[in-house]
């Protein structure tokens, strides 16, 4: 079978393109460590969040050296805690669940973005940098007040974070 030279060229270019696409996604996973948000968390009772260890008091707590866990409950129409305050230059794992309907959890302008499903816990880990204030919003239509459902993620200096938490214990 005869194949025209241009066709051979096109076949080779197509294969090269496929290799480049797979290669760059592989690079993303190996180099910067880009990960998927998995279903590794156990299901929970969305009606019983009041008795849940993690979600009865939504909060940010230290879980290791420079590692923090943020337990967040999304509801119609907001996020708790609000603002979510995390220390700068640390590793933060968000555990997000919903107590009513499906919501979205999107830290605006960043790659931190997941669906929040009642009865499920979405877990995502990010590295935060310098102090900064991020917006947080729901990107799944969740009811009449969807458009006002927003929050804040405040990255503050380590000192400010500790001062705030010491103050928080008294309250």
């Amino acid at each position, binding site marked *: *079978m*005869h194949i*025209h*030279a*241009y066709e051979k*060229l*096109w076949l080779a*270019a197509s294969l090269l*393109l496929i290799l*480049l*696409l797979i290669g*760059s*996604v592989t690079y*993303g996973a190996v180099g*910067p*460590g*880009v*990960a*998927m*948000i998995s279903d590794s968390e156990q299901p929970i009772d969305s009606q019983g969040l009041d008795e849940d260890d993690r979600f009865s008091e939504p909060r940010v707590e230290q879980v290791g050296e420079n590692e923090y866990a943020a337990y967040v409950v999304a509801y119609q129409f907001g996020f708790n805690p609000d603002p979510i305050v995390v220390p700068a230059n640390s590793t933060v*794992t968000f555990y997000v669940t919903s107590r009513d309907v499906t919501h979205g959890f999107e*830290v605006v*302008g*960043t*790659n*931190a973005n997941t669906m929040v499903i009642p009865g499920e816990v979405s*877990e*995502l*880990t*990010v*590295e*935060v*940098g310098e102090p*900064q204030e*991020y917006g947080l919003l729901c990107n799944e239509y969740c009811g009449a007040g969807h458009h006002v459902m927003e929050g804040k993620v405040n990255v503050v200096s380590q000192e400010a974070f500790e001062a705030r938490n010491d103050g928080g214990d008294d309250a």
Partner: protein
Amino acid sequence: MGQNQAAHASSDDVSGEEEFDPIGTLTLIGIYFVILLLSWVYIYYIEFLGRDLVVVG
């Protein structure tokens, strides 16, 4: 099927396929290809990986 292809190939060869040389189409597809590559590099490496809070776990 093998016989069919062989028959077609021989008739194509007789018609002189190499004379069909669409250099304009090749150039156009080449330009599209380069646009595609540059777009991918921009979307993945600059827009996606360059944003804050890359999900790492």
